[in-house]
């Protein structure tokens, strides 16, 4: 039969060339420096951008809706793919929100927390490195990109060693870290990385570089008030002089038990945001070292909570299964089965949990109807909020500033569109 023709809804950009004869330049969605498939419609007068408008949605995959069709443990695989530059940070946000929903926050063993923090801070470095690399590349300094990736590879290697995946980690499990307990030697390798990670290189190459400074200082200024009213979080907010860091101000895991500083710069320009991130690299490096020490002290303790209705049983107890002889544990088998096919069922209710991802406050909001599948999932993605400041940043600036500004707010389109 004839295919039903549904009326096509085309969203027209608000600005057009017809009005006053100014040229509209389509920057993106396929453009080298839009960090994905962002499309910026810029009304330009010569090189000056008079008006800019973002058009997003080119990478929309309906992650929230997908999560709403999957059991809780499956949903996490999609969070790897929102902010793919720092997947473990998303994993952690997801896991913590689900744990809050289940009401088991206090059951998580210390060691799991420290392992999570190690991975989280590695992810922060991971995310900031790709930011520094691409931002510098946008500015034309191409070597930075490769140096950043060189360091990033090492972290990829650490992720791979820890959980098996380099990019889309799916690292943690509700109740702990699942099977991804630290393998032998991993903590030592992390320690080694923390000792050899050379932030100073980036410092030398960009911080003092006159050309870089001239490109970034005084460009894309966003005032403290504007930053707060837009809802900026993370380094973008701290670059505008607000000391706000969820790790400190709404502590989770064991962040209140280690020492670190929160870098804050007041200028609110691209350079200040760069300096915040650069300093966070130093901070994360020292945090990793501290966490590794704690995790080592806790060796031998469990890394998963002892909750039969949430944590998957050890596979050895299940897979002792043989068709003829009975060596597995029936109870473990049944728990395993129920956990796989139905998943844990949080009580009806809702929970929000925000973590400090490399890009800002990454929050997961769940509504549970008591079944094994979330009734509603919402992701408060920092990139999306940060992107909404772009208009303010670039209007009145030059084309080249646009590139610097897009870079400076650190967006990942996977997270913006979700």
């Amino acid at each position: 039969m004839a295919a039903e023709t549904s009326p096509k809804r085309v969203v027209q950009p608000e600005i057009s060339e017809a009005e006053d004869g100014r040229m509209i330049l389509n920057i993106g969605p396929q453009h080298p420096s839009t960090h994905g498939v962002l499309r910026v419609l810029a009304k330009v007068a010569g090189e000056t951008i008079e008006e800019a408008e973002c058009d997003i949605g080119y990478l929309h995959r309906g992650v929230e809706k997908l999560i709403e069709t999957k059991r809780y443990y499956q949903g996490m695989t999609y969070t790897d793919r929102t902010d793919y530059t720092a997947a473990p940070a998303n994993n952690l946000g997801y896991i913590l929100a689900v744990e809050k929903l289940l009401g088991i926050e206090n059951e998580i063993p210390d060691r799991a927390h420290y392992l999570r923090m190690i991975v989280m801070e590695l992810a922060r470095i991971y995310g900031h490195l790709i930011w520094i690399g691409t931002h510098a590349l946008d500015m034309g300094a191409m070597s930075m990109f490769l140096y950043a990736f060189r360091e990033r590879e090492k972290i990829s290697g650490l992720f791979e060693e820890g959980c098996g995946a380099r990019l889309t980690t799916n690292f943690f499990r509700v109740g702990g870290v699942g099977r991804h307990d630290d393998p032998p030697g991993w903590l030592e390798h992390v320690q080694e990385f923390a000792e050899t990670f050379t932030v100073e290189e980036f410092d030398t190459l960009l911080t003092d570089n006159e050309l870089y400074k001239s490109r970034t200082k005084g460009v894309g200024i966003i005032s403290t008030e504007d930053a707060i009213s837009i809802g900026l979080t993370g380094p973008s907010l701290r670059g505008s002089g607000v000391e706000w860091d969820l790790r400190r101000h709404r502590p989770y895991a064991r962040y209140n038990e280690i020492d670190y500083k929160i870098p804050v710069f007041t200028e609110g320009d691209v350079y200040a945001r760069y300096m915040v991130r650069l300093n966070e690299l130093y901070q994360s490096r020292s945090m990793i070292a501290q966490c590794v020490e704690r995790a080592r002290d806790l060796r031998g303790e469990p890394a998963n909570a002892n909750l039969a209705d949430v944590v998957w049983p050890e596979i050895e107890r299940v897979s002792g299964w043989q068709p003829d002889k009975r060596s597995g544990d029936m109870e473990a088998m049944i728990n395993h089965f129920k956990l796989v096919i139905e998943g844990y069922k949080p009580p009806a209710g809702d929970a929000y949990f925000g973590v400090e991802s490399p890009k800002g406050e990454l929050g997961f909001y769940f509504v549970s109807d008591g079944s094994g599948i979330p009734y509603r999932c919402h992701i408060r993605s920092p990139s999306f909020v940060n992107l909404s400041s772009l208009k303010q940043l670039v209007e009145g600036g030059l084309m080249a500033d646009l590139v610097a500004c897009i870079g400076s707010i650190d967006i990942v389109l996977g997270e913006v569109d979700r």
Partner: protein
Amino acid sequence: MVDGWDIVILAIKGLVVLALLALAPMIFVLAERKILGRIQARVGPNRVGPRGYLQTFADAMKLGAKEDLIPPGGDKLIFWLAPLFMAVPAATSLSVLPIGPEVEIGRTIGLWVTDLNVGVLLILAMGSLAAYGPVMSGWSSNSKYAHFGALRSSAQVISYEISLGLAVLAVLMYAGSFSLVDIVNSQKQMWHIVPQILGFFIFAASAVAETNRPPFDLPEAETEIVAGYHVEYSGMRWAMFFLAEYANMFVASMLVTILYLGGWNGWTIPGLEGIMGVMWTLLKAFFFIFVYFWLRAVLPRLRYDQLMGFCWKILLPAGVLNLFLVAILRTIWS
């Protein structure tokens, strides 16, 4: 008078220039990729041929085999002509560059195709013609990015032409001739860089800008306007832009060598002046080309207004100042 040998020698020289035009970019591209790779903690091309040395040949073949796209809505004739306007001036410039002293092989042969008495001017003229390629290609592509690139490029070329000219003028004052051979010969005692260090930097900066190379690569700034004026080109036509860029780089490097670094003047083994001269010239030129790569590896790009400001507010006054100083020096010393 002109005899048969002269024609043969001229033909050989012409062939050498043609070969240079074709080969130098290939070598430079490979060198650039290798050097950049090494600087960036990687190895660069390493697949085609031994250690990747034939990579550019493979690329050239690939480009030759690619489809030649002509964007709709553009001016086909001009789109077709634009790459020629890029490549021909570059090739012409090559023909007046002397790469070594006169040598005696049965007869006296200058290691240059032709020694024009207005050689410097010819190169400047060709350099100013380089504005046509971007303008024509950018306009005929019917693309906004290409248009941006074209405007940026021609503005940049015209502007930096002036500071370049001012710097060259100072050298000409010293050398007292437009002929490149004469200029080199005038540096037997002292390279021009010594009295004209300011002029050298002005010339070097302007040369980088003239060739649209980082950190002055605004016309083709990849992260801003994608590829600038040649964004719509493909295949061999694009290769001609590419070729012209590297040929221009070579010309600029040679020019720096000839104007400031004494050309083939340098320590030489008696009897081998010719070879040593060529070696010195190329060595100096290659060093300058290496500096090109080096800059590309490290520096962020300038912003457009900063670029123009740099030219008009710093280089131009400095050029005038340099001219003034050189004039005084010249007057005093002579």
